[in-house]
């Protein structure tokens, strides 16, 4: 054809926007993932504040039941599907190839596809607010047959979650091949950084569990739109079936949401204690153990259905505490006799340790089946999930952002602002979520749009609401730190923290090809070896 345009040679550069849209570079895709998921974190956070405003006082009319059901459903959906799960893909994308000394992910274009499924899915999910009947309002768990009775927003939710499922599944395959095949010479599996290991186990969980969610979404879609009867007892279906299939995905999904956070904490603690991670291999086996057990505990979400084998699932749920306990002890062992400093990444990692501990302990109450009868579907469970996913995952997210900000953007986040951010968030978090334990024990069910003050629930709810707003306020020092950082030039050296892993061997930010030179790798801490001239490995 005569009209083929010949690319201009030299001096020509694509507009930056086009460059970001067409990129297949894992670092740029990682950054896109981080930006997009933080955007949805902000949206989900605003929805959370609306929820807390409504619940601040008894018999409130700030929003009506119809709106309330939409905002709490979309809060959870955004936080889980559009923030926590994809932000790990963001960290993973940016870091895994750097940490194993690879040029890029194994399949860069599929990587771009994974990312580009994500923003449209978010828009589709939120477009529910514009349709007749409103957005999804069956909770993020979308229990059937309730989900069958709701409006178009539910279909949009199903389509969005299915798209995100495809995104995570192919992303998981990509991570696995990258880690199996793209490691630099000397980087054996048991020298991979812990963060990579947690991404590996997370990817296995995603790869095997997410398609099961897809099958559940297919079934509910057919029930809703093609007169199907999977979940409709009037057509011989089974109302509990949805819960079985949904939780078969969604319990492993809880580990998908926390394991990479554990990985990040396990990167930060050794660096700021000047010691290796205590029990590197034990930690890996514990991670695998959590992953494997994760597939055998789904029915602990269903004890009150009366349709599951309670002692078995109670026991397996308790067993999850064993590898989790091993991890907690390993983290303490890492701090033991270290030279601990308290930079912001370390503060968030320590915040993770102390809060995730509570998230583990209050989980034990659900494993004790008869206690679960009382606390199931009450605010106690809301407290539990937030101690795990906020006290755990979100603290890890911010720890990771403060830790890798110099690497990704070449600038350091202001320490004072970081300390203020941490202090406000830590206090706000406990104010917001600790009272929920007591509310739950006192019988306040979750997902209720309003309550009367018959049982004196108002005081604790008010405290919780104030805590939630304090968390909101704590974001301002973070934003200030980011703005201040971007006003400064890129001045960070390769390795500002005296860290251990390979990403710190290259410039900050790294060049397009990641490394000019890869140091020799003799252990899981190649940079430590380089600094101290010793082989510290296994």
């Amino acid at each position, binding site marked *: 054809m005569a009209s083929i345009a010949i690319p201009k040679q030299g001096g020509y550069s694509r507009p930056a926007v086009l460059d970001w849209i067409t990129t297949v570079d894992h670092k740029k895709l990682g950054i896109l993932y981080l930006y997009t998921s933080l955007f949805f974190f902000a949206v989900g956070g605003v929805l959370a504040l609306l929820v807390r405003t409504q619940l601040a006082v008894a018999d409130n009319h700030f929003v009506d039941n119809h709106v309330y059901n939409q905002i709490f459903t979309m809060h959870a959906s955004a936080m889980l599907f559009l923030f926590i799960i994809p932000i790990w893909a963001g960290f993973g994308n940016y870091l895994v190839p750097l940490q194993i*000394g*690879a*040029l890029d992910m*194994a*399949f860069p274009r*599929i990587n771009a596809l994974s990312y580009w499924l994500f923003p449209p899915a978010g828009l589709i999910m939120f477009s529910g607010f514009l349709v007749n009947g409103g957005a999804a309002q069956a909770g993020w768990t979308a229990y059937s047959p309730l989900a069958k009775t709701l409006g178009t927003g539910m279909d949009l939710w199903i389509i969005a979650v299915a798209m995100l499922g495809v995104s995570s*599944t*192919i992303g*998981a*395959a*990509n991570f*696995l*091949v990258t880690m*199996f*095949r*793209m*490691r*630099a*010479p000397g980087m054996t599996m048991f020298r991979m950084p812990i963060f990579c290991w947690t991404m590996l186990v997370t990817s296995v969980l995603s*790869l*095997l*569990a*997410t*398609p*099961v*969610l*897809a*099958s*559940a979404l*297919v*079934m509910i879609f*057919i*029930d809703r739109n*093609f*007169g*199907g*009867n*999977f979940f*409709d007892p*009037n*057509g*011989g*279906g*089974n109302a509990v*079936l949805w819960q*079985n*299939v949904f939780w*078969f995905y969604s319990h492993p999904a809880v580990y998908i949401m926390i394991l990479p956070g554990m990985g990040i904490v396990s990167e930060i603690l050794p660096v700021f204690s000047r010691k290796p991670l205590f029990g590197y291999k034990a930690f890996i086996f514990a991670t695998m153990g959590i992953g494997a057990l994760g597939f055998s505990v789904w029915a602990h979400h269903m004890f009150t259905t009366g349709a599951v084998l309670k002692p078995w699932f109670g026991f397996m749920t308790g067993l999850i505490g064993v590898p989790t306990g091993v991890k907690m002890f390993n983290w303490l062992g890492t701090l033991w006799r270290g030279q601990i400093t308290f930079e912001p990444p370390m503060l968030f990692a320590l915040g993770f340790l102390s809060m995730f501990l509570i998230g583990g302990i209050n989980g034990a109450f659900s494993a004790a089946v008869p206690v679960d009868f009382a606390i199931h579907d009450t605010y106690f469970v809301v407290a539990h999930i937030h101690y795990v996913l906020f006290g755990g995952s979100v603290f890890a997210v911010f720890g990771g952002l403060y830790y890798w900000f110099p690497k990704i953007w070449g600038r350091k986040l202001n320490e004072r602002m970081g300390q203020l951010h941490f202090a406000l968030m830590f206090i706000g978090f406990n104010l917001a979520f600790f009272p929920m334990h007591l509310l739950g024990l006192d019988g306040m069910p979750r997902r209720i749009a309003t309550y009367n003050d018959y049982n004196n629930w108002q005081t604790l709810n008010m405290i919780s609401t104030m805590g939630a707003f304090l968390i909101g306020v704590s974001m301002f020092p973070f934003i200030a730190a980011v703005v201040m950082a971007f006003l400064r030039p890129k001045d960070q050296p390769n390795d500002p923290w005296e860290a251990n892993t390979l990403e710190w061997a290259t410039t900050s930010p790294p060049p397009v*090809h*990641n*490394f*000019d*030179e*890869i140091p020799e790798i003799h252990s899981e801490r190649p940079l430590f070896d380089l600094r101290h001239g010793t082989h510290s490995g296994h």
Partner: protein
Amino acid sequence: MAAHGATATQHKEPLSNGMLGFILFIASEVMFFGGLFAAYFIARADSPQWPPKDVLEQMKVAGTAAQSAELKLEVALPLIATCILVLSSFTVQWAVMQIQKGNRTGLIWGLFISIALGLTFLTMQMYDYSQLPFSSGDTVWATAFYTLTGFHGAHVAGGAIFMSVCLVRAMGGQFSAEHHEAVEAASFYWHFVDVVWIALFTTLYIVG
């Protein structure tokens, strides 16, 4: 340079990165069908009758199912279709063996026959659908039947498209004894689709 190290380890592996990724993808597909099968078996275990004819009668009374609906399957035609699909698994494997020996003509014929058999299977399934005395809403049994076979059919169609792409590329002379990874991937996928069908046929038609 890092790239040297990374590519150096690649060549030693028996499976290429692409194939490994593709196998992981098939693993996720197995889990997808696993979810649908699990739903079928849970519904089955939960019903006093299977197929749930009692439920269908109730639905007829309630007016939610057609009076003419009947929960029964004819085995003859699907049995022939099963043989055809199994045969196509052999022909596609034969095609792979031919290109491994460098025989491009064999590859083209093998792919062509496999695609033709696949399309025959789909046509027979569509004809079978048109003859069935129940619709997707007539009890959970019917819903599960159409969902399982329908999603399998979609995968057959996907596999046929995959093989057609390989066929066009083969006719363009793009494959050789050394380079025919796409053909192997297509054959893996086709075998997977075949195995799913055998499981489906056994579950739906034989065990019932």
